[in-house]
């Protein structure tokens, strides 16, 4: 396709014929529309500070919607609460010739509560308009503005907000009194040639001519490589409380003083419970385990976002009385309990989720979406996830592991990195014996051990009912005609080790063709995760989110009268991202030994390596399919 470099469009926001400068006809034949769901002609977010206690935020956007998937880019959505007042909201629609077809005013917007389902209550509402014409393309021009006295949290400028979105122009403009300073975090601006301009009372960023980015499998999340600016005033106001964040120490102090202080008083019975529980226990780690399990047994997690903009934890005495709380409350409560046991611990703020996201240490501000508890010991640190009443103490894999977090110490806040579960820790071992019968059925006796990240992935099996367990195994390995004989689970919380003991029978596992019998020795085969597509062209580095460290070892008994004709070949493959070995060798006494190991390293890899990676996976899949051949007498 011909590349047409589109000239910068100069747009005046007072111009009612705005949409006409958004030249749809030309854009539709340019590269901006290739694989694009929408084209942002122009977008401006303007922050107007009168002082630290007052900011008016205005957003104007003009976007061409090209198809169904792009419609959401034309939706006007404004979240608000009692401290945020919406001053205006409007939207206009134009057809591709620039003729106005519809005008929406504030009263046409829908207004509803924005409470998360699992939440008890949140003071959150949303004003939105999500209508639009039927034919494509169409243009939406919307504008809204709100005023708030909460200046701590400002909208993040994230102009390339999704894949398949072209951006011709996007601006962030901040106007402020000359004596105000800001903490800021700027990411990937050079990669996208974002221009920055700074004067004593204005800061502005501008992105132009950005082509749509196509999503690639295994790529890092868009948020990690797209252009982004986060800002927060050094001197701010939040829910009527002033603060100053010049360093992480400041942030920690503010959290301690405004959110935590005085919230940790416990009633007498709580204190005596803990004292009794930890009586005579000298090992601090053991104390932590006892207190943590006490809290887990007693409390439930429920989300409640009230008070100081949702950041203040419930009082520990209330948590004790009601036996429930959200992450902040449960962390604060557990901390108070540990204090009674003379074990110091610290409130920690984190971004929780399966893909690690760091608290951005270059951006001195209140970040994060979750709270956990840090318990430092002499030689190492324990991190407690207080919202999960089934988690082993200290187990944080898959949620808050391997990332920078903010720990609130009495001296102030510090950024620390949480425990990382390496492939060496994330072990899975499948061991056992198998017996092939004359009739072609297979009896399996297996022990499966899961550790580290793998532990968290199977621990929930313990809560399954009998028929659910049956269903789980039948679906896991997709073996036809499976009968589960007996199942036994054991959960070792101290060592983060989960063991499954399984006895089962697979009817008609071997395939008989005449007097030849085919048998695939890798019986408990798991390969669904290794989906690889054939589009090997990558524009961005690829990211293996999960590592692997699995070992399968089985002794297989062959019945009398089965003569071994062909044995699968042994194979060993090794690369920078992993290693695979496979072998099937005869043992005396009419038996075989099957062994397979796979080690895959989690991490970020160069896009040029993707061909090799795909080859590696394909070879593994092909090799796993290998069969043994017997001749039946």
């Amino acid at each position, binding site marked *: 396709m011909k590349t047409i470099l589109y000239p910068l469009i100069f747009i005046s926001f007072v111009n009612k014929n705005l949409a006409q400068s958004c030249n749809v006809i030309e854009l539709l034949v340019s590269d901006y529309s290739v694989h694009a769901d929408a084209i942002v002609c122009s977008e401006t977010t303007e922050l107007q500070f009168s002082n630290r206690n007052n900011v008016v935020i205005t957003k104007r956007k003009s976007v061409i919607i090209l*198809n*169904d*998937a792009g419609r959401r880019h034309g939706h006007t959505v404004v979240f608000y609460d009692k401290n945020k007042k919406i001053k205006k909201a409007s939207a206009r629609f134009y057809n591709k010739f620039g003729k106005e077809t519809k005008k929406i005013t504030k009263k046409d917007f*829908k207004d*509803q*509560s924005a*409470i998360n389902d*699992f939440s*008890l*209550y949140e003071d959150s509402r949303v004003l939105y308009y999500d209508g639009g*014409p*039927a*034919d494509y393309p169409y243009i939406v021009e919307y504008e809204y503005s709100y005023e708030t006295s909460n200046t701590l949290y400002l909208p993040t400028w994230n102009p390339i907000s999704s894949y398949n979105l072209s951006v011709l122009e996007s601006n962030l403009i901040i106007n402020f009194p000359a004596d105000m300073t800001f903490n800021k975090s700027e990411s990937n601006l050079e990669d996208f040639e974002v221009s920055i301009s700074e004067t004593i009372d204005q800061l502005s960023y501008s992105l132009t001519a950005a082509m749509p980015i196509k999503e690639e*499998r295994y790529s890092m999340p868009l948020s990690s490589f797209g252009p982004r600016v986060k800002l927060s005033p050094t001197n701010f106001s939040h829910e009527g409380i002033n603060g100053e964040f010049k360093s992480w120490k400041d942030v920690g102090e503010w959290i301690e003083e405004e959110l935590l202080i005085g919230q940790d008083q416990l009633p007498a019975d709580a204190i005596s419970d803990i004292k009794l529980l930890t009586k005579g226990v000298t090992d601090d780690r053991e104390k932590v385990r006892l207190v943590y399990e006490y809290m887990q*047994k*007693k409390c*439930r*997690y*429920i989300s409640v976002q009230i008070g100081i903009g949702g950041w203040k934890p419930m009082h520990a005495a209330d948590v004790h*009385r*009601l*036996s*429930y709380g959200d992450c902040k409350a449960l962390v604060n409560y557990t901390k108070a309990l540990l204090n009674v046991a003379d074990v110091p611990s610290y409130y920690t703020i984190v971004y929780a989720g399966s893909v690690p996201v760091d608290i951005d240490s270059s951006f001195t501000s209140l970040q994060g979406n979750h709270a956990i508890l840090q318990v430092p010991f002499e030689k190492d640190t324990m991190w407690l996830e207080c919202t999960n*009443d*089934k988690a082993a103490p200290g187990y944080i894999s898959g949620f808050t592991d391997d990332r920078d977090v903010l720990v609130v110490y009495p001296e102030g806040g510090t950024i620390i990195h949480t425990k990382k579960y390496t492939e060496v820790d994330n072990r899975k071992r499948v061991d056992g014996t198998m017996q092939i019968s004359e009739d072609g059925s297979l009896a399996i006796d297996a022990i499966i051990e899961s550790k580290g990240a793998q532990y968290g992935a199977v621990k929930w099996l313990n*809560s399954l*009912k*009998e028929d659910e367990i049956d*269903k789980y195994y*039948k*679906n896991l390995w*997709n073996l*036809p*005609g499976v009968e589960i004989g007996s199942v036994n689970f054991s959960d070792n919380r101290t060592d983060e080790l989960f063991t499954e003991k399984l006895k089962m029978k697979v009817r*008609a596992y071997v*395939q008989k*063709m*005449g007097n*030849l019998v*085919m048998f695939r020795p890798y019986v408990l085969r798991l390969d669904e995760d*290794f*989906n*690889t*597509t*054939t589009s090997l062209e990558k524009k961005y580095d690829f990211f293996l989110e999960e590592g692997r460290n699995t070992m399968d070892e089985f002794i297989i008994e062959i019945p009398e009268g089965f003569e071994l*004709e*062909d044995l*699968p070949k042994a194979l060993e493959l090794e690369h920078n991202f992993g290693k695979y070995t496979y072998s099937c060798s005869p043992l005396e006494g009419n038996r075989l030994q099957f062994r397979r190991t796979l080690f895959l390293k989690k991490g970020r890899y160069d896009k040029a390596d993707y061909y090799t990676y795909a080859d590696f996976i*394909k070879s593994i*899949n*092909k090799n796993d*399919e*290998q*069969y*043994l*051949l017997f001749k039946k007498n």
Partner: protein
Amino acid sequence: MTSSTSYLKRIKFYAPLILLFFCFTSVGNAQKSNSKFGEAVLDELKKKNSSIGPEADAEYLLNNCWTKLSYEPGLGWRRRMIIHKKIKIYSKEDASAWANVIFSLYGKDTYSSLKVVTHNLVDGKSVSEQISKKDIFREKVTEEKENVRFTFPNVKDGSVIEWKYELMSENIFSLGTWYFQYSIPVVHSSYKVSIPSYFNYQSRLIGFDKPSDKIVDYGSDVIYFGTTGSSNNTRTIKKPKDGSTRSSIDTKTIKIIYKDVEALKREQFVFNINNYRNSIRFELESYKEPNKDQQDFTSTWASIAVILMKDKELGLQLRRKAFLKDFFLEMNPELKGKSDKDKMRILFDYVRTNMKWNNNRSKYVDEGIKKAFEDRIGNSAEINLLLINMLRKAGLEANPLVLSTTDNGAIINECPSILQLNYLITAVEIDGKTYLMDAAHKYSNINALPFYCLNYTGFVLYEKGFKEVDLSSKSVERIKIISKVDADGLLSGSFQKMEFGHATIEDRSQLESDEDELVEVIKEMHEGIVKDSFEFVNKTNVKQPLLTNYLFEDETNIQKIGDRLFINPLLYIGQDENPFKKEGRKFPVEIGSSIQENYNVSLELPEGYTVEYLPQAIKLELPDNLGSYYFAVSEGDTSINAIRKLSLNRPIYSAAEAAGLRELFLRIVEVEAEKIILSKVE
């Protein structure tokens, strides 16, 4: 989402002329001690697990509702419900979600007297704690809906949580649905309703189980005549001429009790699990005050048909044809001289491709078909009624068909009710054959309806009368693979799939929104097989089958062991999984469409190899023509050919027939796993 005008508008109802007071305490049987609020019986607290389902994490001890109809001065009839529930928690870890409660208020509904208590066993005694008003939250979701939310304090293993409240609603046309069954066992659930004799309700009981008890009591009550209406009410209350201030009224009290109900678990191939959940629903059939005419509401499908056809947001829309005049002038050259079937096709295609559906499902229009046509956008009723109008103007016999979408539950024929119907499509009759179509869905076709429409039956509405028709679809898939194997075990070939009917709707929609994604999905499904030259033919032309073509190469499908090659005759398209793994299925198998799959795979053999083993042909049949399967592999000079035919002739199978399906697929999976063996010629 549904019609913007409330159903209260549709049924013209005049407030009664009398005041009615109920003596709450006199109605009903003596309450058992453990169903009185606030007292947790020690036995309940000590219980270690459910006797109904010993593995259950929690169970309902009590799930009761008492509904009364009362007359409020100046306001009219009101439905008053007293709801009382008690849940026993066996495992706090796994059942804590039950301790978070939300209930909804619609329109002008109000609630009162909400009491929320947790009971725990402490030192052998029962200890209770009640929450205060400040822990009860109200959330205004939208203008029409409000949620009340609260959670129980101090929930432990063994806790009994209990709550009770009173709900007042203006809606007396339907008393709502009361569920006796949940995903946890229910020890005792009762629904009691006291109905004054002026009201005649029709009730519907659904589910696998029968009630343990059904008690009907007759009684009477006193009504007080008011002297004035409220200032808001323009309807005056007439006092009887004889000067009396009160009168007695007969009442009927029905109580339905379910005991020891098993938990209801979700299953695959069930359109809507609520169709099988033990529950009861009451809808108002008629209302008659003494000395006044009877008002009928919905009682027969025939009367519902009449009501719908007389409604200005449904049937009366069909009178509006004038605005189509210009349109028909334009269309005339295209339609002139064409057969009825062709005209139907032309107009259906026109509406389907030129009107945009705003995703609102309804049987009633919103702004009307004229406005919808002008804007080129409408809800499902507007688009289909528009088509019906056009078809009629072109001289065809076209009528609306009303149905219930799968999420709305199956229509229960024995209990006609307007509320059961929530969607409208088009039915055309030509030469005695019926053609069904939904013009709202861009990729549906004539007699190929979207999945959510395939909900057993619907009703065609005529100007006079109606007819019940089956709603089901057909799905046909034909795959042809031409391939060859070389001596190293490398497979290569071409794949062509032809889809007809129901299966095409989803795929065409997907192709329009994200073709690349569909290609990715196909590649992932047959992972490891390199594909090239993807081609989709007839992406938007619904009259023709949808074709999917591509070339492939595969190294993993064929095993080379020693001097032998092992090949699956169906290559990678065989059935490797049984969709009906579970034994002892209680529910019918609801697929929605009949299925026909015909596969033809030809495989050219490599040089120097002969066939050592060929799987046997097999034919399997289900009784009563429910379905059949045929598989055969034949050998030619230099190639092998495999044919496989599967037919499931019914869109829905009963639970008894499901066992047969399971066995059939077990055999199919076994058969299709067999391999051809080729060995090298010496």
